[in-house]
């Protein structure tokens, strides 16, 4: 067995397109990169722009940003958990995933107005404050999501056939994973404890709550899926804690009406649902960026496909690719 990923069939030229947009316009473009967790795409770009402008969002905006970030992770990875089953012929989990993702999307819609493409993050804060009653509703939904995780744990992860299909298949040792630049759950499943939410200090709220970075020593397909399942659970806990501690105050810092980003270069990356996603923004002091380099997680995660697919059975390709979890838009941008 031998495989070579051939990227480029979905290339939409986002890096080039950003050059003819103003800074506020770019977010509506880039939240289409990983379309299942859109809000998480906006955050690192906005953070990079804020870094260049040397402003910081107010604490309330940071909290809400982090909550929405984690909600988009739940929406994204929750769907992955259901999709796992359908790749292996179990049709039921995917419907459960869609059912419970709907609650999360409703929350995102309630807060931002957009279900898939919120375009809510602004330089210096957020477009709006949270609507009334949103916090209580979110807590209810987080309970539902934890129940969904238990369901998937029973239905899929506890299933002997699922385990026999996943365990020991597509093993990626930690040194190989690091060499290929894997990130996110794929790297953590190989035993590397590496999480950008914890390992760097960003103007976000992750350092204000108590949570755990899950790793797994095995590095096989099972480990990758299991780590993601634990991360969804962990995300619901992060959201719950953040909801309790949202500080009062404005959601928008003082920014000029017309945003001109001073000359300079900035790199900010965050721990997105799929892995490390970063933007290298070069500004020449104009309304729009001079050049943006997008580092998306799936592109690097997929680069290991030729290595990991060498010599496996054909049915194992399905499980390995499913467990590597890529989104086509995130590969090609």
């Amino acid at each position, binding site marked *: 067995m031998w495989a070579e990923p051939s990227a480029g069939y979905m290339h939409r030229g986002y890096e080039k397109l950003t050059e003819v947009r103003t800074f506020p316009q770019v977010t509506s473009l880039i939240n289409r990169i990983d379309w299942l967790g859109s809000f998480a795409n906006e955050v690192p770009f906005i953070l990079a722009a804020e870094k260049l402008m040397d402003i910081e969002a107010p604490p309330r905006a940071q909290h809400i940003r982090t909550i929405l970030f984690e909600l988009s992770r739940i929406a994204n990875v929750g769907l992955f958990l259901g999709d796992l*089953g*359908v*790749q*292996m*012929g*179990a*049709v*039921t989990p995917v*419907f*459960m995933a869609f*059912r419970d993702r709907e609650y999360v999307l409703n929350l995102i819609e309630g807060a931002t107005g957009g279900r898939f493409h919120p375009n809510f993050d602004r330089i210096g804060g957020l477009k709006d404050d949270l609507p009334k009653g949103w916090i209580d509703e979110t807590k209810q939904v987080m309970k539902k999501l934890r129940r969904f995780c238990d369901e998937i744990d029973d*239905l*899929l992860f506890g*299933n002997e*056939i*699922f385990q*026999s*299909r996943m365990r020991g298949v597509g093993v990626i040792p930690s040194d190989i994973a690091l060499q290929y630049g894997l990130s996110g759950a794929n790297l953590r499943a190989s035993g590397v404890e590496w999480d950008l939410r914890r390992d760097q200090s960003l103007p976000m709220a992750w350092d204000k709550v108590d949570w755990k970075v899950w790793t797994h020593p095995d590095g096989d397909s099972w480990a990758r899926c299991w780590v993601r399942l634990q991360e969804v659970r962990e995300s619901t806990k992060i959201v719950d804690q953040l909801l309790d501690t949202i500080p009062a105050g404005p959601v928008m810092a003082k920014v000029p009406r017309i945003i001109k980003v001073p000359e300079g270069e900035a790199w900010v990356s965050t721990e997105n649902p799929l892995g490390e996603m970063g933007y290298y923004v070069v500004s020449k002091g104009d309304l729009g960026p001079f050049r943006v380099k997008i580092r998306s997680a799936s592109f690097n995660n997929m680069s290991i496909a030729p290595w990991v697919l060498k010599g496996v*059975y*054909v*049915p*194992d390709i*399905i499980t390995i690719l499913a467990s590597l979890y890529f989104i086509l838009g995130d590969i090609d941008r």
Partner: protein
Amino acid sequence: MSALLAVEIPYWGQSLLRVLGGIVAVLLPAGTIVYLFLFKMMSFMQSRLGPMEAGPFGSMQLFAEVGKWLQKEDIVPAEADARIYKLAPVIVLLSTFLLVVVVPFGPDAYFVDFSAGVFYALAIGSVSVIGILVAGWSSANKYSLLGGLRAAGQLIAYELPMVLAVVGVVIQAGSMNLQDIVVAQNSGSIFGWDGVGFPFVLTQFVGFLVFMIAVQAELTQVPFDMPIAESELVSGYMTEYSGFRFLIFFIGEFATAGVFAFIASVLFLGGWGVPFSWFGWEGLDDVDNWMNIGGPLIMFTKMLVLTGIIMWVRFSYPRFREDQLQRFAWKVLIPISLANIALTAIVKVAV
């Protein structure tokens, strides 16, 4: 009532009744399974409603689907071996009809009373392999071919545990005649208590489990659906089929599920009978005539329970990998069923 049913029917009339009965015995379970389980149970498990528009609660949906398939173009690929390609689905459905022939539905409500009915059923049950293999081969499509080969390998592998599981029943009943097996179960008694007869599922529970697993595999339902694994082989041996030929495959799949459930209920669950002690019957000749009506209903109920289990597993399990599937048959099921036969024989001789 019994006098009315005991009326002499001429031979042609009997034949006609049997033909009609055969069609009903194949198509009615198939339709019920598709509606009740594939449409409704699956939908409820997946938190949706399923078909709701055609008829009350979507009960006429199946007719709409059949109408849709009948209207579709009957495509034969240019490279395909057209004659065999067209014949293949018919072989599959034919094997189902040949299989239902042997199932007894009542004291007189049977099609043919073979003295070696079990042998016939298991032999005819594998005819569908030919249809599937031929379908895969003649489609001139690599996915079809792989699917057909997988199906052949799988059906042969699981034919063996199925046969071996049935041997236990045959030893216990002392007969290969399905009618005799039913009578043996319903006239039997458990340590002198004959309140529920003596369904073989009690002593042959291992055999029953092996049989049901093998049935699941024979039907290529989900944990064993490698031949049509859609994420690997598009649709396996059915890839190139469209229109009514696909429909025939589809009916064949669910009709065979029904017929295998009939056979399983005959072998393990007491078939059409009620415990003879309830009505003071001694043997087959004493059984009242109304059982010719009641028997089919009892069979139908048991069939629904068994296919319900088959479908339940189908909707909640992921599928095996091809090598795991073969290993499961040869290394787990066959040794278990062989041990079961040995144990049954020892107990039979000892008691």
